[in-house]
């Protein structure tokens, strides 16, 4: 058994273990036969949403890291995460207006927020692609993404500031930015499954292009890679994945950075391996963190997105330290 094969088995075991544990852990007592089905359904939805958010972020991380040829790139680099957050905040601020009878009948009320996130992310993506044009350099894309992020974050900051004068709205916005996957239901799953699962599958069609891009744009082009097309679609799929992740899980940080980084030494840098590995690894990581969020006794709300970072940063540091000791800076 080689290192890579073993890694796949471990990934699958950790993921399966997380799924089983995730179904068993919660406030409710599963021996209560009347409620068992309800509890399991709740936990299954929560589990599914956690896994999808993690998978989307980790896969998005692999895509941008390949695109920018930088293992420190994170999916939020394109500005779509900030755009999605802003979209959510705008919807929250308009919540009363939107819910006062003018709510479209076809849209479940709980999807108003996710749809706001998606629209925000897509608007950010359109802006990014319009500003950078057809064949802008990677640096232009990077700078534009950074500036769009800053812009959206500051507009979000303005909204938060205005909202703080309204106690309930202020609380709602803070809760939204720290929100996790609890209470997410089948509507959220139905929204995210195609975007994350099929999105990753289709994004895999660029795996070899991204491998080629590791050698630099000129060399990639010389061996037949349509660099403009790779860039366009890597951006579009990253945006789609992160939008889905924010829509169902809020701001979950660090997954897109840490999971691919942790996996590279084991499965290698080739995208055909790395993307599916990151998909599983991201799902497993967020599912386990969400279990942690459930079992740690706290008075208030333990925000999933903050805990991923609290747990992720030490793991990341450990990996870095180990890599540095072994003289292998992946």
């Amino acid at each position, binding site marked *: 058994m080689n290192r890579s094969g073993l890694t796949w088995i471990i990934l699958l075991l950790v993921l399966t273990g997380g799924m089983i544990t995730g179904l068993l852990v919660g406030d409710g007592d599963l021996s209560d036969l009347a409620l068992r089905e309800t509890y399991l359904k709740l936990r299954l939805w929560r589990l599914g949403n956690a896994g999808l958010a993690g998978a989307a972020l980790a896969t998005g991380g692999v895509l941008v890291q390949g695109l920018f*040829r930088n293992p420190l790139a994170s999916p939020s680099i394109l500005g779509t995460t900030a755009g999605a957050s802003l979209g959510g905040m705008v919807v929250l601020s308009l919540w009363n207006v939107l819910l006062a009878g003018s709510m479209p009948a076809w849209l479940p009320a709980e999807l108003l927020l996710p749809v706001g996130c998606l629209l925000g992310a897509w608007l950010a993506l359109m802006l990014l692609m319009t500003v950078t044009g057809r064949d802008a350099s990677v640096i232009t894309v990077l700078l534009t993404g950074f500036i769009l992020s800053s812009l959206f974050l500051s507009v979000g900051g303005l909204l938060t500031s205005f909202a703080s004068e309204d106690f309930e709205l202020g609380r709602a916005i803070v809760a939204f930015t720290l929100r996790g996957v609890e209470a997410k239901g089948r509507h959220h799953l139905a929204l995210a499954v195609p975007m994350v699962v099929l999105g990753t599958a289709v994004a895999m069609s660029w795996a070899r292009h991204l491998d080629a891009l590791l*050698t630099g744009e*000129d*060399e990639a*082009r*010389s*061996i037949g890679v349509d660099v403009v097309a790779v860039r366009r679609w890597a951006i579009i799929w990253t945006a789609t994945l992160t939008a889905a992740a924010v829509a169902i899980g809020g701001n979950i940080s660090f997954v897109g950075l840490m999971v691919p980084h942790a996996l590279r030494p084991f499965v290698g*840098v080739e995208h055909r391996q790395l993307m599916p590995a990151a998909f599983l690894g991201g799902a497993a990581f967020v599912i386990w963190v969400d279990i942690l969020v459930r079992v740690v006794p706290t008075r208030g709300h333990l925000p999933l997105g903050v805990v991923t970072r609290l747990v992720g940063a030490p793991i990341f540091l450990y990996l870095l330290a180990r890599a540095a000791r072994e003289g292998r800076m992946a």
Partner: protein
Amino acid sequence: MSPPSIGQRGLAVTGLRVRHRHGPEVVHGVDLQAHPGEVMGLVGPNGAGKTTVLKAMVGLLPSAGTITLDGQDLSQLSARERAHRVAYVPQRTALTAPLSVRSVVDLGRFAHRSSWSRPSAHDRAVVSQALEDANVADLAERPFSTLSGGERQRVLLARALATQAPVLLLDEPTSALDVRQVLLLHTILRTLAQRGSIIIAVLHDLAEVREHTDRAVLLQDGQVQYTGPTPEVVALEPVRAAYGVDLIERAGLAYRLPTGGGVA
């Protein structure tokens, strides 16, 4: 898609003009012809535009003028189709990721299969042959990032060989090589030429050009100053005009591979 048959006309560059993005024109109407079976050296002083001309031929820089292979305009082709015809060995690579040597060479097969398919038996055979030919078979499983400069350059050559393109363009392929590796490289290039490839290499060392190329193009200030059989181009007058130095014909140190091939 099978590689196009190599006609008699070879690679023809006519009126090639290259302008830097938002900058001045640096190549002013270069014409050159390269024929199957010959190794061409592209020489000239620093800043003459050698690399620029080469990159324009690969399609990496936007250019005016026409570049045809056997009468077919290369600018009309997609990146993928072009990669079937023209292979490129850069001076140095931007690759820093720990991709294995075999994977790097396998990238040369990029244009030969679809995005989804795994390498075919033919792909694998071609890659193995390229590794052998470039003398890097023993490095196949090593991560590229751990190689020395010379090893890297040979791997890049192997990748170009794996494309099986009839035109091979090399940018200072010997700059990081020791004498033995230089000789090995030229042996490989000669073999390819004998099989009917068109080889154009940007070279720095005029002695090397004299020794290993059939024809040479001397560029200066983005224009072709001299072109012809190598002994006529790398000669007293052209060299004095382009470089401002006198060429002294004298026996110096020379190297050759031991008889029996000497390919390790």
